[in-house]
Structure formats: structure tokens, C-alpha cells
């Protein structure tokens, strides 16, 4: 009997110890997570800087309970129109975060509307699996739209400097100053290329590229087209301009018509020589290649925005025996044109072409401004390299552009 009592007691003791251990473990585990977490400290709410006014930024210092390996889940943002509530949940950010932008849309009728110039009150709650502890209420704070984004000041300064340089050189050029610009083989070859087509009695093909009328390369190409059209009208050569974009086609027609008018040959203008082909990339190149192989133009101009079809155009032009002058600001296509064409205008040389062809003082002035701006950039790059090498971070920080 005594043996059974001892065994029974031992078993009871064992079970009790296990159960106690579990309770203890539960209690021990609950102690850090079982009690509510510490709230975040120094919660601040302020208008998000340099925005449209439909956002408020909150910052805080981490809760003491926010430690690695803990049951800490994150921080809940709570917002109300009054300091006493009711508070609305504005989202949960993960553990470790110390900032959040509470933002929304500006349309009143949309879900997620966030009113400007309206008082809001905030609390930030530390959240664990066991519970939440809120910070004191902060506020009132309003979202206010700013009229100037100070983060973009470096861009504004650069624009002002460049505009100033441009206006200065334009004024100088108008007053008769002689501005030197280096010769460009591609531009010098334009007259020769048009003359070749006239002698051979073959047409000139002018391809404006795949850009829209808003692309700078296309705008630059219009300028060259205008001058080519005037010469073509003088020499009575035919001109073919297949277009990729309908708006580009309309502008090209006006440009060529003006060229013919300026040459005093309005009756020679044929609107059907400038037409819309297609706005499908490879269908367009198929069409232009067909024109090259059938009409065998003596001269091909590829001036504008080009993509993968650039080499296809240039190689087909080589097969057709045309002299080819190309210019694009698409950095990926420049090597193909350099390899396959007789003359290539690289990048900004295309934009400068209008100044080269017309030699007007105003245009030459803008070209000189670009050169001086480039010199300024080179100087800043050299200073920047030295500054970075010697740890003068202040200089590099001046060029940082915000949102």
C-alpha cells in the first residue's frame, strides 16, 4: 500500500511539475508579451513638406518593447477630427518603422479623400499580440499645400543660369558679335547631298523618325526639313516624306509648304509627297524600305527619333546606293547610324543643326550658351570629384534633388 502511495505521489508530483512548468512558461512568456507594450515616444505630426497638402507626416521614437525577437507587431496610426475621438485606424506600419505619411486623394467624391486645411489629431499605438498602447494625442495639425518645392531648388538654379546664359548670348549675337562654332561634317554635307539627287534626277527621302511632335528630336528635324524643302524647291528635286505620326505629318506638310513658298515656287508643292504611312514600327520600316528599293532615292535623311529599325533603314539605303545623313538623340541607335551611314549627327548635334544651317544670330547664341553650360558642368564634375575625395559632402549635397 505504502509503495502504491509513494508511486502515486511521485506520479502526481511529476504531473504537477510539468503543469507548473507549462504555467510558468506561459506566465514567463506572457511577462514581456503578456503585459501591454510600451508606447512610442516623442510622437510628432506635421504637414508633409513640399506636397499638395493632402498628406501629414508622423514621426516617433521606437517603443521600448520594439526589440528583435519580441512579439512586437508594429505601430498603428490613429486619426480623429477632435482630440477626444473617435479615432479611425489609418494603417499599421511594421516593427522598426519610425515614420509614416498619412495621405489620401484630393477628390472629395473618391474613397480615401484627405481634406486640406482641416484639423486632425493623431495617436500612434504600439501593437503586440497581447494588446496595444497608445501615445498621447498630438495635434491639431493640418495638411497645407506648398507653392514651391524647395527640394527642387538645384533644378531651378540650373534653369535660371542656363536661361541667363542663353539670353546673354542671344543679345550679344544680335549686337553683331562673331560667335565661332566648330564645323559639322553632316551639316556641311546636306547641300552636297541635295545637289547629288538633283544631278541624278532621283528623289530625296526624308524620314522624320518614330517620334511624336512633342519630341525635341522631331522638332529639330522639322527645322532641317524646312531648309531642305526650300533647297529642293529651288533645284526642282522631288521630296518624299513618309510619316509615322499623324500630327507629325500635319506639321511636316506645313513645313514643306512654307519651304516651297519661301523659294517662290508654291505651285510646285505636292501635298501627297508627305503622307502618313502607319504607326506600327516594323510596318513603317517595311514601307520605307519598299520606297527605297522601288524609288531608289539618291539621298536619304534619317533625322529624328529612331529605335530598333535604324539599322534596317540604313542598310537598305546602302543596298539602294543612296548617300545617307542621319541624326538622332537615341543613344542606343547612334552606333548603328555611325556604322552604316555616310554622315551622322550625334545627339545634340541634331538640335544644333538649325543654327548651323541658318546661321541666324539668335540660334548661334543658344548654341554658345549650351557650350558654356557644358563647361560649367565639367567644372562642377571636377570640383565634385575633389570634394568627394576630400570628404566635402556639403558640395555634393547642394546638387541633391528632392521629390
Amino acid at each position, binding site marked *: 500500500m505504502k509503495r502504491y502511495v509513494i508511486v502515486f505521489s511521485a506520479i502526481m508530483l511529476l504531473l504537477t511539475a510539468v503543469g507548473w512548468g507549462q504555467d510558468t512558461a506561459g506566465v514567463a512568456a506572457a511577462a514581456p508579451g503578456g503585459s501591454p507594450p510600451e508606447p512610442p515616444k516623442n510622437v510628432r505630426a506635421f504637414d508633409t513638406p*513640399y*506636397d*499638395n497638402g493632402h498628406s501629414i507626416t508622423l514621426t516617433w521614437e521606437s517603443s521600448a518593447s520594439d526589440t528583435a525577437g519580441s512579439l512586437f507587431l508594429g505601430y498603428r496610426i490613429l486619426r480623429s477630427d477632435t482630440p477626444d475621438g473617435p479615432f479611425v485606424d489609418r494603417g499599421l506600419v511594421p516593427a522598426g518603422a519610425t515614420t509614416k505619411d498619412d495621405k489620401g486623394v*484630393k477628390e472629395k467624391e473618391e474613397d480615401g479623400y484627405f481634406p*486640406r486645411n482641416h484639423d486632425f489629431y493623431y495617436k500612434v499605438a504600439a501593437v503586440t499580440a497581447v494588446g496595444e498602447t497608445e501615445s498621447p494625442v498630438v495635434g491639431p495639425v493640418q495638411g497645407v*499645400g*506648398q*507653392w*514651391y*518645392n524647395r527640394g527642387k531648388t538645384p533644378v*531651378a538654379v540650373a534653369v535660371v543660369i*542656363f536661361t541667363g546664359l*542663353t539670353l546673354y548670348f*542671344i543679345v550679344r549675337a544680335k549686337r553683331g558679335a562673331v560667335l565661332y562654332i566648330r564645323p559639322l561634317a553632316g551639316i556641311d554635307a546636306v547641300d552636297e547631298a541635295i545637289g547629288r539627287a538633283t544631278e541624278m534626277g532621283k528623289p530625296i527621302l526624308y524620314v522624320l523618325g518614330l517620334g511624336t*511632335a512633342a519630341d*525635341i528630336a522631331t*522638332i529639330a528635324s*522639322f*527645322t532641317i526639313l*524646312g531648309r531642305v524643302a526650300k533647297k529642293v524647291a529651288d533645284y526642282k528635286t522631288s521630296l518624299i516624306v513618309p*510619316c509615322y*505620326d*499623324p*500630327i507629325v*505629318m*500635319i*506639321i511636316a506638310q*506645313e*513645313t514643306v509648304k*512654307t519651304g516651297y513658298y*519661301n523659294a517662290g515656287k508654291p505651285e510646285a508643292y505636292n501635298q*501627297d509627297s508627305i*503622307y*502618313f*504611312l502607319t*504607326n506600327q*514600327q*516594323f*510596318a513603317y*520600316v517595311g514601307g520605307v524600305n519598299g520606297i527605297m528599293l*522601288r524609288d531608289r532615292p539618291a539621298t536619304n535623311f534619317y533625322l529624328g527619333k529612331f529605335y*530598333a529599325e535604324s*539599322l*534596317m533603314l*540604313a*542598310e537598305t539605303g546602302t543596298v539602294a546606293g543612296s548617300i545617307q545623313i542621319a541624326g538622332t*538623340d537615341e*543613344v542606343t541607335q*547612334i552606333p548603328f547610324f555611325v*556604322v552604316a551611314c555616310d554622315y551622322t549627327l*550625334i*545627339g*545634340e548635334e541634331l*538640335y544644333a543643326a538649325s543654327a548651323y544651317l541658318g546661321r541666324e544670330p*539668335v*540660334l548661334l547664341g*543658344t*548654341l554658345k550658351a*549650351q557650350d558654356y553650360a*557644358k563647361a560649367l558642368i565639367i567644372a562642377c564634375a571636377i570640383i565634385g570629384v575633389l570634394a568627394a575625395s576630400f570628404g566635402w559632402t556639403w558640395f555634393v549635397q547642394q546638387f541633391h534633388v528632392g521629390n
Partner: protein
Amino acid sequence: MKKEIPLLIVFVSGLFMAVQFFVPHASSEFIYEFVMEWSIIIGIFALALGIWSLVRVSVNKIRRRSENWPYAIVILAGLAAMMVFALAWGGLESYMFRSFFNYVMIPLHATMFSLLAFFIASAAFRAFRARTALATVLLISALVLMLRFNPYLGPLGGPEAGLAQWVLNVPNLAAKRAIIIGIGLGMVATSLKVILGIERTYMGSD
């Protein structure tokens, strides 16, 4: 006034869009979004003008029996067929429209793009010649870069891969950045010329 009003419109809109970049306020955002929405609408209407131009040119070619006029019939037939399928035969989801897109357009586009491989081969054969010192440098760089992914001509990640990466990361990057900076300045200059009315050929007047 025929010239002055468009110039004024260009000046005001150009100036507004330039200033808007620096103004985050909701009022400027509202006008900006308004302009963007209308730009899309205008673009779509311009497409109708383009199609009208293509039809007119093709019809004239057929009427005058110009050189290669049968191709103009092909253009008109293709245009008409796709419009009929899309508008009257069940829309963009119709079997015919999808079939023409999947079994005619896509293979034609892919075929045209694949011709680029042959053109690259013939251009490389013709242009990569060691005529001058610089041309030789170009030739060697091209060979190194083409070989870097070739698993048969050396262990992957070998010295040629390091050299190729250096060529891409140093001289290539430097040259591209310089060209991009020049293009950026040229874009600003051309935009300034357009806004200030110095560049006007897009208006059809000199």
C-alpha cells in the same frame, strides 16, 4: 494675329508646365491633370486625320494607276478588313480580329524584327575593319563584348568577362553619360527656343 496667337499659346503653356514642376500645390496639379487628359484626347483625334491621309494617297495612286498601284489596294483592303472585324464583327474580342492579329500581324512584325540579325551581320562584316587605330580599338571592344557571354571560348567569369565588364562600366558609361548630358542641354535649349518663339518651323512659318 495668325502667328501671334499660336506663339502666345506656346509661351503660356510652356511657361506653365515649366513652373508647374516646382509647384506641388493641388491647384497646379489640377490644371496639369486637365492638360494631360486633353492631350490624350487630341492625340486620338489626330489618328483619324492620319488614316484619312493614308486613304486619300492610296485612292489617288489607284485612280492614276501610279507605279506599284496594286500595293495601294492591299493597304486599303487590310485597313478596311481590320476596321470591319473590330467595329461590325464582334469587336476586339472577335475571332477574326484576333486571328488576323495573332496569325498575320504578330508573325509579320516578328519577321521584320528578325531581319535585324542579318543586317547586323552584314553591317558588322562591312564596318568592323582595322582601318585606323581607333577603328582597331572599336573592333577589339566589339569582339571582347560579343565573346563575354560565349560559354565555349573560356570559363564563364574568366578574364574576358572582367574586361568586357570594364569596357561597359568605364569607357562606355563615360561616353554615354557625356552624350546624355549634351542631349539634356540640347533639349533644354530647344525647349527654350520653342517657348520663346525663336524656333517656329513647327508652325509652318520661318
